[in-house]
C-alpha cells in the first residue's frame, strides 16, 4: 500500500509552532488516525498562537530551521477568544519584515488547523516539507552564524578553524 521510501539528499529541519487547543490536537488526531507524513517536523507547543513571539521564528531560523510552520485555531475558534486574531496581525506584519530583509517567505508557512483537521495537518506539514526539500537548506542564516567582523567575512584561518571546532 505504502510507496517505497525515497531517500533524499537533503532532509530539511522543519519547526512547527502550534497552539495546544487546535493544531496540537489536530496533529494528535493525525496520529490516532495513523496518517503518515514526513518526520522532519518538530513541534513546539504553546497555549495559543497569541503567545508566539516573532523572536521565536527568528531564533529557529538562526538555529538551523529550514522551514517554519505557525499554526493555530481558525478565527473565531480561539480557546482564548482573541489570541489568534492578535497573532494574525502580528505575523502579517512580521512576515513582511522578514521578506523585506530578504527571507524567502516560502520558508514560513502559516495555517489554521483545528482539532478536527488531522488531514489538514498532514497536508500542511507534507507540503511544507516537500517545498523546503526542493528549495534546499536555508543558507542565509547559517552563513551569518559563522561570520565575524570586517564586513562579515571569516577573516582569519584560525577563526575558520575555531568555527570548525564547534561541532
Amino acid at each position: 500500500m505504502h510507496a517505497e521510501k525515497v531517500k533524499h539528499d537533503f532532509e530539511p529541519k522543519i519547526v512547527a509552532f502550534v497552539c495546544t487547543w487546535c493544531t496540537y490536537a489536530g496533529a494528535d488526531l493525525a496520529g490516532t488516525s495513523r496518517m503518515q507524513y514526513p518526520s522532519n517536523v518538530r513541534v513546539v507547543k504553546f497555549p495559543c498562537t497569541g503567545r508566539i513571539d516573532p523572536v521565536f521564528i527568528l531564533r529557529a531560523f538562526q538555529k538551523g530551521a529550514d522551514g517554519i510552520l505557525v499554526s493555530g485555531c481558525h478565527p473565531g475558534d480561539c480557546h482564548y477568544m482573541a489570541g489568534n486574531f492578535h497573532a494574525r496581525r502580528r505575523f502579517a506584519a512580521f512576515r513582511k519584515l522578514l521578506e523585506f530583509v530578504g527571507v524567502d517567505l516560502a520558508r514560513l508557512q502559516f495555517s489554521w488547523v483545528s482539532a478536527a483537521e488531522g488531514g489538514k495537518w498532514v497536508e500542511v506539514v507534507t507540503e511544507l516539507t516537500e517545498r523546503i526539500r526542493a528549495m534546499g537548506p536555508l543558507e542565509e542564516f547559517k552563513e551569518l552564524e559563522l561570520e565575524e567582523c570586517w564586513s562579515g567575512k571569516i577573516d582569519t584561518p584560525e577563526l575558520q578553524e575555531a568555527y570548525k571546532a564547534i561541532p
Partner: protein
Amino acid sequence: MPKMITEQNLRALIDLLVKEGSRVVGPKAAGTMTLYEPLAAGEELVLTELPRRSAKEAFFPLCETILTYAKGEEGVQVNDIDPARFPETVLVAVRPCDAAAPGILDAVFSWDYDDQFYQERRKKTAIIGLACTKADDACFCTAVGLSPAETQGSDLFLTPLSGGGFRVEAVTEKGEKLLARYSQLFGEAGSAQPLPPAEPGGEKLELARIKAWLDANFESPLWQEIADRCAGCGACAFLCPACHCFDINDEGTEAKGARRKSWDACGFAKFTNHASGHNPRDAQNKRYRNRLMHKFKYYDDKFGKHLCTGCGRCVRACPVGIDIKAVLDEINSK
C-alpha cells in the same frame, strides 16, 4: 637620502603584499563610508577620507572568539585559539591619530597579563602612516599633543607631495625592513615638496591643567549637565581609537558554543550592573564622568598616557552633539 613612492607604486606594494600572503588592511570604500578593512588589491585603497571607524580593530577586533567549547561524553572540551597563527599584517594609509593609538593601548594590554590576541597582532603588524593634509572642524589632534604630520606610532610614514606621490620615512626598524624589502617600489624623494600638513582648528588644551581639574572634581555639576543630554549609546566609544573596554560572553548552548570578547562601552547603563541589581555607576552622569576621567586621568595615573588622539570621531558621531573638545575647552578654561 629621503625616499618617495608614487601612488601607483603604493597600490602595487599592496598587491605585492597580498600576493605574498600578508593581510593588508587599509581605508576602503564601504557604502557611504570609508572603513579600515582587509584589502584584496591596491586599487581598493582610499586615500582621501578618514575612515569612519578607527584602526584599533586591526589589533583589537570588534568581536573575536577567544575559545570554543563542546561538551562530550568525557566532559567539556575547550578548543583554544592560538594567537601564534594570526597573519602578518600591514596597516596602510593610517592617519597619525589612528597610528598613535596602539602605542597608548600597549600599556593596558600588557599590564602584568599579556593579552596575546592583541600583542600577537601588534607584533605582526606594520603600520604605514599617512600625514593629513586636510582636517575638519571636529579634528583636534594638535590640541592633545599630536599633529597631522606626527610620525610616532607608524613604522613607515608617508607624507603627500605637492606633485603627487608620497615622501617615505622609516620611523622604526620594522619600517626600515619594509623599505629595504620592497626597495624596487621606492624612489628618491628629490626636490618635491611635501604638501603642508592640515591645520585642525580649536583651542589648544593644557592636558596637565585638565588633569589637575579632574583630580579635584570627581563631584562637579558639569557631569550632570552633560549627562542630561547624553543618550547613553556607545557610538563615541566604538569609534574611538583608544577606548578599549570589552565584554566577554558565551554564545551557544550548554553543549557547545563559543566564548567571545567584544567591544563594550562605559556609557551603557548596564556596563557595571551587578547581577544582584546593584550598579556602582547607576546614572549617566557617573558613566560620562568615568569616560572622561578614564581618558584624561585614570589612564594617566596608571600609565602616564591619555586615551585620546584627537581624531574627532566621537564628536562627529555623537547623536546628541556632545563634543568632547568643547567639554575639554570648558575644563581647560576653569
